[in-house]
């Protein structure tokens, strides 16, 4: 798929392993956080899903602290959907101001958890028929909103059955095929651009993490070189060994010989191997 499509699973949870998978085909579970037990049910589904899943939150009122915390728990599950490493949360609802406030509140809490750039996006428009979806998809591909590097917000489709998901994907693939036949050069460039964008992202990530680790290692070396480490070792030596009486230490060396830690000859001569490997 050229343009990312989110299939928002509303009234049914199909057998997730059987859902068609593919590049830029995403699945999201519609949850009303205010309904008791709804987030818990979705949590169990995301935990055991073989396919990456995200949440689409039906926002009817401001999110409570408990709800925000529960939503955050999802984002640590490895199977939670990420696009370019950004965790995706879709917000659905009729009140744009409430959606904006919810996005802000969620972002604030997630930032506190070290999740700095979640992809929190409003669900608009809500598409419910394959015809609407296909028309919207085609229109977006030809508009100036289309980013050929794959960094697009999604299209949101509410299928009422698993059959409709398959039908929608088949229809969208037909749009892609038509584009590839009408404008093969353009179509190939889009594919190439997406691939290169992903590779660039992966390389940039490795670079950033390596630079960060190098910085950590510098800090460790600084600590090791500082007086702290030497003092720690000296204090340990003094407390554990140096304060013992000389006769005890000498007996200790004989014990070492008996336990095979030191050679017998080294007790009498300095020019022989002292410790056994």
């Amino acid at each position, binding site marked *: 798929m050229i343009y990312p499509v989110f299939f928002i699973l509303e009234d049914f949870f199909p057998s997730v392993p059987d859902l068609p998978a593919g590049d830029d085909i995403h699945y999201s579970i519609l949850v009303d956080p205010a309904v008791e037990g709804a987030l818990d049910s979705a949590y169990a589904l995301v935990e055991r899903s073989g396919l990456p899943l995200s949440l689409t939150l039906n926002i009817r009122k401001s999110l409570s602290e408990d709800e925000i915390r529960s939503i955050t728990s999802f984002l*640590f599950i490895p199977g939670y959907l990420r696009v370019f490493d950004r965790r995706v949360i879709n917000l659905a609802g009729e009140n744009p101001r409430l959606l904006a406030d919810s996005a802000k509140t969620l972002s604030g809490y997630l930032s506190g958890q*070290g999740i700095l750039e979640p992809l929190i996006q409003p669900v608009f428009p809500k598409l419910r028929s394959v015809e609407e979806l296909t028309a919207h998809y085609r229109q977006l591909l030809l508009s100036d909103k289309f980013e050929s590097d794959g960094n697009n917000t999604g299209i949101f489709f509410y299928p009422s059955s698993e059959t409709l998901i398959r039908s929608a994907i088949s229809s969208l693939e037909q749009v892609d095929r038509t584009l590839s036949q009408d404008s093969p050069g353009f179509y190939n460039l889009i594919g190439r651009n997406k691939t290169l964008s992903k590779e660039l992202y992966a390389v940039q990530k*490795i670079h950033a*993490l390596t630079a960060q*680790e190098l910085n950590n290692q510098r800090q460790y070396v600084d600590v090791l070189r500082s007086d702290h480490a030497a003092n720690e070792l000296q204090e340990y030596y003094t407390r554990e060994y140096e304060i013992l009486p000389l006769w005890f230490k000498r007996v200790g060396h004989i014990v070492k010989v008996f336990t095979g830690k030191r050679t017998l000859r080294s007790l009498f001569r300095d020019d022989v191997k002292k410790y056994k490997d």
Partner: protein
Amino acid sequence: MSAALFSVFFHNYYGDHEAWVKLFTQQIRQPFILYYNIVEDSVYNIGDDQPLVSRLRESISGSFLKDIVLRRSPNQGKDIGGKLVLLDACLHEALPTPFSIFLHDKKSPYKIQGQQWKNRLFGIIEPDFIEKALSSFTRNDKLGIIAGSSDIRDEYDHSLKSFISTNRPQLQQFQTTFHINTTDYRYVAGTMFLARSSPLLDFFRKYPPLDIRKTLEKGNIMDETSGSNTHAWERMLCWLIFAQGYTIKGL
């Protein structure tokens, strides 16, 4: 399937996941659930999770490892932040295990004796140690924590009535905020220990782990020269158990 006796909370920064899971399955001879946190912004942990999850789950069959609950989180609060993510996951489970084991892939590359320390800390999952620990927990129902005896520390100076620690301001503040009323200020250096689960989970049901985690410092934190919330919580993980009437024992 017999019910798990232990929840093992393991935080990983340095990768090598299959080797770690293999170590746990070899060492722990009691039914256990492995809660496993991977630091996602670590250069040692770049890679796709899904094949890893499948491979790790496959390694379960036939061992005492009953389930793996994997989590992936940003580097915040070092191993304490990771353990809080895992405790949050654990609170979603219907039936918590009676005992917990806290571990992480400690390296302490800035300490000369880091490797020896790590080896000693991992002694708590030796089969003999676990047997003795279980026996002690059974004999004394007020025993909350068991750790290696040489890793139990106390930074409280009773004559000065104060902590000899760079983390003193944070410790005093947290005691008040979280109503930790204890006069036992021992803790386990390295934060690897066995604990009775009930006081631990009771505390975190009241004070959600993620709310605590958001107060922890991001990235690579050391308390060589100044204190941190993260290092203060190393101590608090023990004290919150003592505050509920339990004690600690070194083996």
